[in-house]
């Protein structure tokens, strides 16, 4: 799986926001806000990857158990899916 569009991530108003670009003609950009773990998951999705790989990355970055990391990743991927932002 990987991200469907090109995105730009920036801090806006103290919040990390990813905005899809290249959706020509769309006045309202597709966007998603990222928390700390979201940022790591996001970076991982920049290229083709898997749930396991992302979970490993999250565990390496933060001091969390596999269970906690998995829940985080699955929730986040669900959000992306519902926004139509993921290619699987």
């Amino acid at each position, binding site marked *: 799986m990987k991200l469907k569009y090109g995105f730009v991530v920036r801090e806006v108003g103290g919040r990390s926001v990813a905005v899809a670009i290249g959706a020509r003609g769309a006045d309202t950009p597709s*966007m998603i806000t990222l928390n700390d773990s979201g940022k790591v998951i996001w970076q991982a999705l920049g290229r083709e990857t898997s749930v396991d790989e992302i979970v490993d990355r999250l565990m390496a970055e933060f001091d969390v158990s596999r269970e906690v990391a998995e829940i985080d990743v699955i929730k986040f991927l669900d959000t992306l899916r519902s926004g139509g932002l993921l290619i699987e």
Partner: protein
Amino acid sequence: MLKISVAGIVFEIEHTYPHIAAQCASYLCDGEPSHTVRVTPEMILREKQAATGEVSDGYCESLAAYREISRYLARHDALLLHSAVIEVNGRAIAFSARSGTGKSTHIRLWKRVLGDCVRIVNGDKPIIRFRNDGTPIAYGTPWAGKEGWQRNVGVPLQSIVILRRGETDRILPLSKEEAALELLGQILIGETEGEAAATMEMLDRLIASVDLRVLYCTPTEEAARVACRALLENKE
């Protein structure tokens, strides 16, 4: 060929239809253009497909030209903020909301309550540009929505107010985070990574520079009274 100055930036526009020339009548200028905007038939078609209802080619050409103009704004410390801006006592207040919430209605109420103290800067698509000292200035533009409310002026921007419909009228402070989410939906982000990044940086700067509020409002004069009491009184 049309040469206009908007927000102090000179654009040359190559156009086919007379619509945009009439629309830009009070923005014509003689200066050296910073950018040349060319509207292609594909751009016109794109606006037509995105529009709701029947729209003319000339109207779509004008929309496309403004979309192109918006792509250059971040280079000039500016961005297009979809909002209705009024001027009171030399300060500008921008009302932002999703379409259909009642920005125009709310502004009419301000006019009714405060009379001639209230002047419109732009009813729909103003440009906000940072002055060298960092003050954001709200500029009128020829693109002003169906009412066509606009003046060719620049006024220091005091507040951005997010309008939401409410059962009662109350105005509350708005956090920078909430403002970011609301306003990201009210800007033109650009088409390339570079443009989008620059526009988001501009929005971040804007959010840090103005007073931010959310107004829950009814379509009555009381809404304007509540808002104007809060927005005008605690300023010098």
